[in-house]
């Protein structure tokens, strides 16, 4: 194999020379796409929310049985409460209060606090799993294309096998074996999600490696490591950025889907977990399920818009 782990760390550093002007250029191109800018703005808002939001909200784990199923602010619902003294149901009107702007769930937990801490979990899941997938996919793709021959064959057949493996079944299996731990779920999503990326990166690198600058770099005495990290990877970095942006929502949704069918990590309040807890009270407290649902919807939309915008910006053939 071409690299050891130490070389990879050095290599990643080498991929990042000062390219502020290029970033500026692509930002100018991306900016022309309004939806992409909206996406980016929402993602930045989300990151800020996840980073500093929990400092300002209530404790998302604190149950309060005096204030269960409170609707969001400006909403009023009728609630039937069993009165033990009269042995009868009394219907009362409950309005949302500013103490719980997004209402509370059936255990009286503050929805806003849960959504905010859920943002943190869902974003982390998306970023870490995508990070694992991108690093694996890039290295496998580039090495496969660069070395060619039997290495390429072996790696690509392995990729094929991974692709045909039903990913959801694997996740269910992992949860079944190791228990519903978020770390394992993230790892599993990352370790299975690299296949498409590897293929794309490989096909791009295949055409790059025959370009003369690769031969020129070798003619100047560059090692394989150097060619891969300094010359090939920087040339596929636009592809990597696009793939990363487009795969994050998939990962977030996968985690949410797992949680929704009850295979999520119950100790960590991700949006999927909240959504799942909300489905039991959908008739009495619809907001518990709807609020994380809207957040998931917006987040996935924002990443997709940004990904599309970046793809157009990085495509030299398109004139957006």
């Amino acid at each position, binding site marked *: 194999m071409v690299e050891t782990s130490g070389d990879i760390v050095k290599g990643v550093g080498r991929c990042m*020379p000062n390219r502020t002007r290029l970033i500026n250029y692509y930002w100018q191109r991306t900016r022309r796409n309004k939806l992409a800018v909206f996406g980016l703005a929402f993602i930045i808002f989300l990151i800020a929310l996840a980073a500093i939001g929990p400092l300002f909200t209530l404790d998302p784990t604190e149950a309060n049985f005096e204030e269960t199923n409170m609707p969001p602010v400006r909403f009023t619902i009728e609630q039937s409460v069993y009165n033990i003294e009269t042995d009868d149901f009394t219907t009362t009107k409950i309005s949302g209060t500013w103490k719980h702007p997004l209402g509370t769930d059936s255990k009286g937990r503050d929805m806003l606090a849960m959504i905010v801490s859920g943002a943190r979990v869902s974003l982390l899941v998306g970023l870490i799993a995508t990070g694992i997938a991108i690093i694996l996919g890039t290295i496998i793709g580039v090495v496969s294309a660069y070395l*060619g021959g039997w290495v390429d064959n072996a790696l690509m057949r392995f990729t094929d096998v991974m692709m045909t493996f039903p990913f959801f079944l694997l996740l269910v299996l992992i949860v079944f074996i190791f228990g519903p731990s978020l770390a394992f779920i993230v790892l599993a999503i990352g370790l299975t999600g690299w296949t498409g990326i590897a293929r794309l990166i490989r096909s791009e690198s295949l055409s790059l490696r025959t*370009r*003369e600058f690769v031969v020129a770099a070798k003619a*100047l*005495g560059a090692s394989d490591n150097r060619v891969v990290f*300094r010359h090939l990877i*920087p040339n596929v970095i636009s592809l990597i950025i696009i793939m990363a942006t487009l795969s994050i929502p998939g990962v977030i949704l996968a985690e949410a889907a797992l949680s929704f069918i009850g295979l999520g990590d119950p100790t960590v309040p991700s949006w999927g977990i909240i959504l799942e807890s909300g489905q039991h009270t959908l008739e009495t407290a619809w907001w518990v399920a709807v609020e994380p649902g809207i957040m998931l919807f917006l987040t996935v939309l924002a990443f997709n818009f940004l990904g599309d915008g970046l793809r157009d910006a990085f495509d030299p053939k398109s004139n957006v």
Partner: protein
Amino acid sequence: MSNVILKVSELKTYFFTRRGVVKAVDGVEFELRHGECLCLVGESGCGKTVTALSILRLFDSPPGKIVDGQISFDSLNLTECSSKQLRQIRGKDIAIVFQEAQSALNPVLTIGDQITEQIKLHLPLDSNRTRDLAITLLSDMGIPSPEKVMSYYPHQLSGGMKQRVLIAMSLSCDPQILIADEPTTAVDVTIKAQILDIFRELKAKRQMSTIFITHDLAVVAEIGDRAVVMYGGKDVETAPVSEIISNPKHPYTIGLIDCLPDIAESGERLVSIPGTTPNPLDMPTGCTFHPRCPEVMKICSQKEPPETAISKEHKVSCHLYT
């Protein structure tokens, strides 16, 4: 001879493809003397570039393989060197300038990044001195405001500038041998003249030993000391340039020279050698040139012609002279 610094003998580089064995280089022999400019001349597909790539083993392997022959440099046989040894020679002792400057520069790195990278690879200099050296190299190549050019990306430079940047890069470690693979083919005539000037100056000032690959006999006449005419992966004639131009022996060389437009005879149709370069998968037997040769004899299709010395410096492989 003691001043020979690179000797290529019986070099055979084959490409083993699915459709058969491509004998791109099939027994080339030449020597490069210190301080001379040796030209490799021939049509497209005659193995000039593969010969150059073979010296530093830069072709893709597989499918390419040096199956036979020796490349002696500095008491080393380059065909038997480990890839690590070779890596140290590449760029430091033997440097290559490629044909298309556009594609030989990495589009996502600045000129400065690429030129300093090359220096850092071979010379133990700190980053300030590396930068200074890079700027000196660029200004030596006649690049205006080199400090600025250092932060440019390749697409911001013209073709001629890029070619100069490439030459500057290849000279950065003061190599003993410079291999130039058609450096004047992809540029227009004014740039061509300037680049030829650079090579002439290199020879005069640094006594650079150069292997200059070209298909353009006019360029050969202008800067070459000796020339090796290649056809079908073999060297067919080797002689000093003046001898090649005034007294060509091999029918192929004669044909090449006849192809040059003559300024005195206006209105004439341009002459060309009939036929095309042979299919490398299916080389003609005997002398590979015989299907196109105006003086073909019976023996030509049966036996490969041996090398004959016309004079001490003039060698030709053709049955006409055996």
